[in-house]
C-alpha cells in the first residue's frame, strides 16, 4: 500500500480567471506560509479528553485536480479525500450588483457539488482589498455587504461558513489571517470527526458480525486499520496505537478460537526471511497479502509490529520500540520453535539474531532524528537488551556448531536442554551473510561473538546497567577460557568477584572464584600469592553461606573444597609469607578464664575453633594475643596438625606468669607461611550506641599463680632521709630454678642507678654477683623458692607520693632452657613514710633534752620497736646521749589518736655542729600480723607436712578473714592473742589448716624479744644553736623553816646565771651580751619591790644578782614570779639591715618551787614614835 499522505487535503475553487491571476498566487503563497496549523485542540464527542494536535500539515489543492476514486472498495485513510472545500470570491464588498449578476451563480454551482459530499465541509472566503474597503466608508451600509448577502444565501444553519479576508499586497499580517485559519481548523475538525464517527460505526458493525459466517478477519483488519492510518495522518499517534492494540487483541481472540482460515500457514519461510530487516513495512507487500487472504501469521504479526513500532517512533517512544521488539522476538520465536520441523534448521536463531540487530539499527536511525536526552539511558538499555538477545542466539548457534561448550554461561541461552548426542544442524539455510560467514569459521564466529557482546556491554554501560554488563563480561571471560586465552580469562575472573562481593552475592561471587581457580589450574600457573587470595576468597564465600549458596552439585562440593585445601596445603609451604585478615571460614572462641599449669610457670587458655569448611584445615600454629591494662601483651600458642570441620577445642599455652584480666586483642592461625589473622578488639565508632560497644570485647581472666616467678618492689629496710633514695627489688623465684634473668626498671622522671646495686639477700654470696649494665641487670643461677632482694638507688622522688615503675624482666628456667619468658610488670611503690616526727628541745645549762613525738600519717597502727638518737660519730664529738626510757620499754603502738614520745638527754663539751640522727625501727601492724600468721602456718606445716602446698593460700585466707573485721586489733595490741573472726567455708580445702592455725593464734603472746621484719628510718636531727642560755632564780633569803605570812615583806635575791655553751661563742670568756630582765607581775599574789626590771651584762658562766623584796598579798601556796630575760640587740653586729638579737633561752630554776604563805593571826600593834615635841 502507498504510505498515508502526510497532510490533510483542503480544496479550493474560484473562477478560472481569478485562479490564474497573480493576486491569487500571492494569496495562496501567503496562506501556505501560515501553515502548518499549530496547536489544534480536537474536542471529540466520542472521546473523553481533548486531543491536542501540535502541528498539522495542510495541503491546498485545486478542487478540479481531485479526481474521485470512489471506485475502490478498499477502505483507506479518511484523509484521502479533502476534508474542507473552499470557494474564493473577490468582488468588492459593496458591489452587490456584481454579486447578484455573476458571483452568486458561481457559488451556487460550486456549492451544489461540494455540499453533497460526505464528511466534507465547505467554506466561502471573501477576499477584500484593504484599500477599497477604506473608501467605501459607512455611508452605504444600508444596502448590506456582499458578505452578508452570501451568508444569507448559503449559510443556512448555525455554523458560520463564510469568512472575509482583508487582503493587501505586500503586508503579511497574521492577525488578518486569524479568523480564516480558525474557520479552516473548525471546518476540518468537524469534517474529520464526522468521518471518524462513521468509520468507527462501520468497524463496530463489522466486529459485531464476527460470529456470522462469511466474516473475514482480514477485511475487518483493513477496515479498522484505516482508522489508525487516519489518526496517524493527523499525528494522533497514541490513538493510532490504540487501534493497533485493539487489533492485536482481536487477533489473539481469533487465535484462541483457532479460526485461522483467513491466514495461510503459520509461516512459509522464503529464503531471505530470516535476515530481512524486521521493522521495514515495505519489504513485502503486506497489505496486498492481507487483502488476498493469504498472508502468513508470521508476516502478519511482523507487519503489525512494524506499524506499531513506526508509530511509536513517530511519537518518540523509541524505548518502547525496543521493548516491543524484544518481547515479540522472544514470544514469536517460541511459537516458531513449536513447528521447528517445518522450517529450515536454525531459522529461529538466525531470524532472531538478524531481526534484533536490524531493529537496533532501525531504532538508531529513528533515534538520530529525535531528541531524547532524558530517555537516552533507557533507550540504550532497550537496545542493549536487543543486542544481548542477538548475542544469546550466538550462544545457541555456537553450541550447535560446537564452537562453544554446552555448559553455563553459554547453555543458559538454551531454551531446552540439548540432547547429549544431537546431530549438528545444518547452517546452510542461514541467509544473514555475516552470520553464515561466522558459522563457517570458529575464529570469525568468536570475533562476531566478542563484537556483539562488547556492543551490548557498551550499550549497557551507557544506560547505567552495570550489572548486566558484568554478566556479559563474565561470558566473555568464559569464552576466553574456552579458547584457551587463559591470561585474559584469569584477569577477568579475578576482577569480577569484587563486583559481586560488596552486596554479598555469594552465589555469583563463588562462581567467578571457582572459574578463576579452574582457569589457574588449566593455565598451570604457579600457585602463588594471588592464587591463594582467590582460594581464600572462595573459602570465604563457602563459609559465609554455609556452602548452601554454591551453585554446584551438593555431593561434589565438599570434595571440591577438600581438593582445594590439599592444594593449598602444598602451596603454603613454598610461599613468601603473607597474612590474611578476618577470614570467616575459621572462627575462634576464647574461654573467659585461663587455667594454670601447676607444674611450671604459665597458663592455659581454652580456645574453640569453628571450622565452617567441610574439610579439615591443615594448620601449624594457633595463637591468641591478650593485652593488659598497661598495654602489655601475651601470646598463647599451641601447635596443631589440622582443624577438623566443625568445632575443635585446643589448649593454648603461654609461659608468661601473669595474672589479672586481659583483653582479647587478636588471634592468628598459621598454615606454614600463611597467616590468618583476626582482630577481636572492637572500638565503638558511634558514641551514642552503647550497646554495640558492650559485650563485644572479650575479657580473659588469668588466675594468680602463687608459685610463679615474680618481681616485686618494696621500700628498702632502711630509709635514710637526706641520703640517696633507693628501692628494693624482690625477685621471687617461686618454683623455678632460674638459669638466668635480666630486668630493667623504668619510671617517668626517675633515673635508676644500676651500677650502685647491692644484693641485700642472704643468698647473695652463693649466687654469682649481678651483672649490671647501665640499662639492665642480669642475674644467673638462682635457686628455687627464694627471694632475692636487690637494692637499687635512684634519683630523688620526694615530689611524688608514689612512683609507678615498669619492670621488664626476662628469665629462663633451668628446666626449660629453650623458653625465654618475658614479663612486663607495673608496680607502684609509695615513697612517703608512714610516720612523722616532731622534735622539741629543752636547754638546761650544759645539757639538752630532746623530745621526739612520733605520730602516724595514715590511719594504720604503727608498731615502733625503739627509737635511738645517734651522734654522728660517737668517738670524736664527745657527745653523750642518754635515752630517758629504759630499753625494756617494749613495742610502742602509734595510733592516729595517740602519738609516741621519746626523750633523750644530750651532754656535750661544746655546741653541736653536726646533725644527729634519729633511728626509728618500726613496722605496720599489718606487717606484724602477717608475720605472726605466717609463722603460725609454718609451725602448723611442721606438724602436718601435707599442708605444705597450701601454705600461701592459708595465709591469704586468714588475712582475708582479718580484713573482714577489725575487732581483733584491740585484744592483739594488749595481749598478743590473735582472735581471727569468722572461718572459711566448710567445703573449703583450706578449712582444716586454717582452723588449726586459728587455734594456735588464739594463744599467741607478744614475744619478749620481737621477731620478724622491721623497717628503719633514719632522720637527721640538728641540734639548734642557742647563744645564751640563762637560768633565772629567785631565792628567798631566809631560814628554811621560817613561816611566811601574808603581808610580810620577804627579802629575796634574783640570780641570773648565763652560759654560752650551746652558742657560737662557747667558752669565750671575753664575750659579753647586754641582757634585760623583767620580773613578771603577779598582781594577785605578789607585790614585788626592788629593781624589778633592768639590764645587765651576761658573760659565759657569769652570774648576775639583784636583791628584791616580795610581799605576799594573801595566804596560800604560790609559785614565785617568773623572770623574763631577753637579750638586747647587739650594738656591733648588724644582720640583714636590722639589729641582730642573739637567741636566748631562759629557764626558771625555781619554776617548780612553791612558797607557803600563812595567814596572819591576831593583831599587831605598831607604836610609832611621834617624835619629841
Amino acid at each position, binding site marked *: 500500500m502507498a504510505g498515508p499522505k502526510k497532510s490533510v487535503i483542503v480544496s479550493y475553487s474560484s473562477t478560472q480567471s481569478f485562479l490564474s491571476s497573480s493576486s491569487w498566487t500571492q494569496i495562496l503563497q501567503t496562506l501556505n506560509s501560515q501553515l502548518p496549523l499549530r496547536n489544534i485542540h480536537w474536542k471529540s464527542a466520542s472521546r473523553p479528553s481533548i486531543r491536542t494536535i501540535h502541528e498539522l500539515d495542510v495541503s491546498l489543492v485545486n478542487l478540479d485536480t481531485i479526481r474521485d476514486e470512489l471506485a475502490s472498495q478498499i477502505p483507506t485513510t479518511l484523509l484521502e479525500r479533502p476534508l474542507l472545500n473552499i470557494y474564493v470570491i473577490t468582488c468588492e464588498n459593496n458591489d452587490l450588483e456584481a454579486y447578484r449578476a455573476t458571483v452568486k451563480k458561481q457559488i451556487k454551482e460550486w456549492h451544489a457539488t461540494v455540499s453533497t459530499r460526505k464528511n466534507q465541509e465547505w467554506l466561502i472566503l471573501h477576499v477584500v482589498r484593504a484599500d477599497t474597503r477604506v473608501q467605501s466608508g459607512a455611508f452605504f451600509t444600508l444596502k448590506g455587504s456582499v458578505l452578508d448577502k452570501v451568508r444569507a444565501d448559503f449559510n443556512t444553519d448555525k455554523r458560520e461558513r463564510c469568512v472575509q479576508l482583508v487582503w493587501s499586497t505586500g503586508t503579511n499580517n497574521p492577525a488578518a489571517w486569524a479568523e480564516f485559519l480558525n474557520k479552516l481548523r473548525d471546518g476540518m475538525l468537524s469534517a474529520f470527526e464526522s468521518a471518524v464517527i462513521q468509520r468507527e460505526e462501520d468497524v463496530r458493525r463489522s466486529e459485531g458480525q464476527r460470529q456470522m459466517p462469511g466474516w473475514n478477519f482480514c477485511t475487518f483488519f483493513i477496515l479498522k486499520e484505516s482508522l489508525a492510518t487516519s489518526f496517524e495522518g493527523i499525528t494522533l499517534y497514541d490513538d493510532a496505537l490504540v487501534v493497533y492494540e485493539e487489533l492485536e487483541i482481536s487477533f489473539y481472540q481469533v487465535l484462541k478460537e483457532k479460526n485461522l482460515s483467513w491466514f495461510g500457514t503459520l509461516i512459509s519461510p522464503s529464503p531471505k526471511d530470516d535476515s530481512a530487516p524486521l521493522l521495514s513495512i515495505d519489504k513485502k507487500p503486506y497489505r496486498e497479502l492481507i487483502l488476498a487472504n493469504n498472508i502468513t501469521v508470521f508476516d502478519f504479526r511482523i507487519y503489525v509490529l512494524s506499524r506499531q513500532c513506526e508509530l511509536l517512533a513517530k511519537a518518540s517512544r523509541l524505548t518502547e520500540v525496543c*521493548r516491543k521488539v*524484544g*518481547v515479540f*522476538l*522472544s*514470544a514469536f*520465536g*517460541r*511459537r516458531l520453535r513449536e513447528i521447528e520441523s517445518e522450517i529450515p534448521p536454525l531459522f529461529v536463531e538466525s531470524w*532472531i539474531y538478524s531481526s534484533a540487530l536490524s531493529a537496533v539499527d532501525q531504532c538508531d536511525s529513528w533515534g538520530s532524528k529525535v531528541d531524547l536526552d532524558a530517555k537516552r*539511558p*533507557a533507550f540504550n*538499555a532497550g537496545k542493549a*537488551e536487543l543486542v544481548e*538477545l542477538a548475542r*544469546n542466539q550466538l550462544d545457541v548457534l555456537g553450541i550447535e556448531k560446537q564452537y562453544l561448550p554446552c*555448559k*553455563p*554461561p553459554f*547453555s*543458559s*541461552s538454551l*531454551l531446552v*536442554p540439548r540432547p547429549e548426542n544431537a546431530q549438528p544442524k545444518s547452517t546452510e539455510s542461514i541467509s544473514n551473510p555475516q552470520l553464515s560467514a561466522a558459522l563457517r569459521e570458529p575464529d570469525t564466529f568468536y570475533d562476531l561473538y566478542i563484537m556483539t557482546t562488547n556492543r551490548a556491554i557498551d550499550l549497557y554501560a551507557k544506560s*547505567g*546497567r*552495570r*550489572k*548486566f554488563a*558484568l*554478566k556479559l563480561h563474565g561470558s566473555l571471560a568464559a569464552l576466553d577460557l574456552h579458547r584457551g586465552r587463559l591470561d585474559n580469562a584469569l584477569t577477568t575472573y579475578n576482577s569480577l568477584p569484587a563486583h*559481586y562481593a560488596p*552486596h*554479598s*552475592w*555469594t*552465589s*555469583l561471587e563463588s*562462581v567467578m572464584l571457582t572459574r578463576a581457580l579452574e582457569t589457574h589450574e588449566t593455565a598451570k600457573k604457579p600457585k602463588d600469592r594471588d592464587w591463594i587470595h582467590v582460594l581464600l576468597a572462595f573459602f570465604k564465600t563457602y563459609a559465609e553461606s*554455609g556452602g*548452601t549458596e554454591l*551453585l554446584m*552439585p551438593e555431593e561434589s562440593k565438599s570434595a571440591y573444597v577438600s581438593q582445594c585445601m590439599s592444594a593449598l596445603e602444598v602451596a603454603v609451604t613454598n610461599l613468601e609469607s603473607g597474612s590474611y585478615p578476618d577470614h570467616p571460614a575459621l572462627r575462634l572462641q576464647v574461654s573467659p578464664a585461663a587455667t594454670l599449669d601447676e607444674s611450671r610457670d604459665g597458663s592455659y587458655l581454652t580456645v574453640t575453633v569453628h571450622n565452617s569448611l567441610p574439610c579439615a584445615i591443615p594448620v601449624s600454629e594457633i595463637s591468641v594475643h591478650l593485652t593488659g591494662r598497661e598495654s602489655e601483651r601475651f601470646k598463647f600458642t599451641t601447635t596443631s596438625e589440622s582443624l577438623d570441620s566443625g568445632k575443635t577445642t585446643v589448649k593454648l599455652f603461654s609461659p608468661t606468669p601473669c595474672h589479672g584480666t586481659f583483653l582479647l586483642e587478636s588471634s592468628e592461625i598459621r598454615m606454614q607461611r600463611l597467616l590468618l589473622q583476626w582482630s577481636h578488639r572492637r572500638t565503638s565508632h558511634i558514641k551514642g550506641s552503647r*550497646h*554495640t*560497644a*558492650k*559485650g*563485644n570485647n572479650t575479657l580473659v581472666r588469668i588466675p594468680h599463680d602463687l608459685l610463679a616467678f615474680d618481681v616485686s618492689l618494696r621500700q628498702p629496710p632502711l630509709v635514710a632521709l637526706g641520703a640517696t633514695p633507693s628501692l628494693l627489688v624482690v625477685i621471687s623465684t617461686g618454683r623455678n630454678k632460674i638459669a638466668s634473668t635480666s630486668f630493667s626498671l623504668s619510671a617517668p622522671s626517675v633515673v635508676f642507678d644500676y651500677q650502685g646495686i647491692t644484693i641485700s639477700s642472704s643468698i647473695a654470696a652463693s649466687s654469682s654477683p649481678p651483672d649490671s649494665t647501665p640499662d639492665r641487670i642480669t642475674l644467673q643461677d638462682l635457686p628455687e623458692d627464694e627471694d632475692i632482694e636487690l637494692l637499687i638507688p635512684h634519683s630523688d622522688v620526694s615530689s611524688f607520693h608514689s612512683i609507678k615503675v615498669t619492670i621488664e624482666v626476662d628469665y629462663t628456667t633451668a628446666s626449660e632452657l629453650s623458653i625465654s619468658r618475658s614479663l612486663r610488670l607495673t608496680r607502684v611503690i609509695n615513697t612517703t613514710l608512714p610516720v612523722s616526727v616532731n622534735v622539741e628541745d629543752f636547754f638546761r645549762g650544759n645539757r639538752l633534752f630532746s623530745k621526739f613525738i612520733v605520730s602516724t600519717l595514715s590511719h594504720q597502727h604503727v608498731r615502733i620497736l625503739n627509737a635511738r638518737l645517734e651522734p654522728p660519730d660517737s668517738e670524736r664529738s664527745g657527745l653523750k646521749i642518754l635515752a630517758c626510757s629504759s630499753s625494756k620499754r617494749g613495742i610502742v603502738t602509734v595510733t592516729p589518736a595517740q602519738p609516741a614520745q621519746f626523750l633523750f638527754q644530750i651532754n656535750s663539751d661544746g655546741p653541736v655542729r653536726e646533725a644527729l640522727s634519729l633511728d626509728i625501727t618500726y613496722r605496720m601492724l599489718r606487717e606484724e600480723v602477717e608475720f605472726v600468721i605466717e609463722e603460725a602456718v609454718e609451725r602448723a606445716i611442721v606438724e602436718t607436712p601435707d599442708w605444705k602446698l597450701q601454705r600461701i593460700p592459708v595465709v591469704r585466707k586468714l588475712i582475708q578473714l582479718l580484713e573482714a573485721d577489725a575487732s581483733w586489733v584491740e585484744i592483739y595490741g594488749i595481749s598478743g592473742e590473735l582472735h581471727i573472726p569468722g572461718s572459711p567455708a566448710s567445703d573449703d580445702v583450706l578449712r582444716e589448716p586454717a582452723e588449726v592455725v586459728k587455734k594456735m593464734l588464739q594463744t599467741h603472746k607478744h614475744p619478749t624479744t620481737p621477731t620478724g621484719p622491721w623497717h628503719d628510718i633514719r632522720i637527721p636531727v640538728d641540734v639548734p644553736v642557742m647563744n645564751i642560755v640563762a637560768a633565772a632564780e629567785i631565792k628567798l633569803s631566809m631560814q628554811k623553816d621560817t613561816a611566811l605570812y601574808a603581808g610580810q615583806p620577804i627579802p629575796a635575791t634574783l640570780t641570773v646565771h648565763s652560759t654560752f655553751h650551746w652558742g657560737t661563742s662557747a667558752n669565750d670568756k671575753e664575750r659579753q651580751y647586754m641582757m634585760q630582765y623583767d620580773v613578771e607581775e603577779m598582781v594577785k599574789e605578789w607585790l614585788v619591790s626592788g629593781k624589778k626590771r633592768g639590764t645587765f651584762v651576761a658573760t659565759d658562766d657569769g652570774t648576775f644578782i639583784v636583791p628584791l623584796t616580795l610581799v605576799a598579798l594573801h595566804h596560800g601556796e604560790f609559785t614565785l614570779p617568773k623572770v623574763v630575760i631577753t637579750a638586747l640587740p647587739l650594738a656591733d653586729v648588724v644582720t640583714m639591715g636590722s639589729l641582730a638579737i642573739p637567741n636566748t633561752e631562759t629557764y626558771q630554776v625555781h619554776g617548780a618551787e612553791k612558797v607557803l604563805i600563812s595567814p596572819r593571826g591576831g593583831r599587831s600593834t605598831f607604836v610609832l614614835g611621834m617624835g619629841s615635841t
Partner: protein
Amino acid sequence: MAPNLRLNAVAFISPQNHPILIRTFTKQDEGAIKYHYIAHTSLDVIEERASSKSSECYLGLLYSTEDVAVYGYMTPLKVKIVLAAALTDAVARDVDLNMIFKALHMAYYSAISNPFLVPPDTSGAVHDSARPVLAGSPKWKQFRRRVDEIARIVGNPATTTAP
C-alpha cells in the same frame, strides 16, 4: 489465578541489594546460575523504575529474555522481590502478578517478624540492615517452604479450588 503462569524463580533482595533468598523451581541444576544472574541484573532495572515511579509497589515487567519474563516488586521498605516467570504467548495480567507478589511479600513479612531471627548473642553487633538477610538463611525453613508453596499453587491453579 492466571493459567499457564509458571514461576521459574523467585528472588528476595534486601534494601541494601543483598540477596535474601533466591529460589529456583526448574529442574536443571546448572540453570540455577541463570536465575541468580537474573536476580542480580534486575536490580539495575528496578533502580531505573524506582526512581521514576513512586508509590506503587508493583513495578511491572522489568525485562524479558527468550524464555522468561522478569517482574519486579518493591515493598515500602525497599525489599525487592523479583519473579521470573516462564514466557508464554498469553499475556500475564498485572493483577495476577500483583497478587502473587503480595503473597510473596506476606511470606517474607512473616519470616522477618520472627522474634528469634537475630541470635541473642549478637544482638548488638547485627545491624537492622542485616535483619532481612538473616530471614533468608537456611536456618528458617518455613520461609522457603512458603515461597515454594506459592510457586506450586501458581503453577497448578487447579489445587487452589481444593479446600
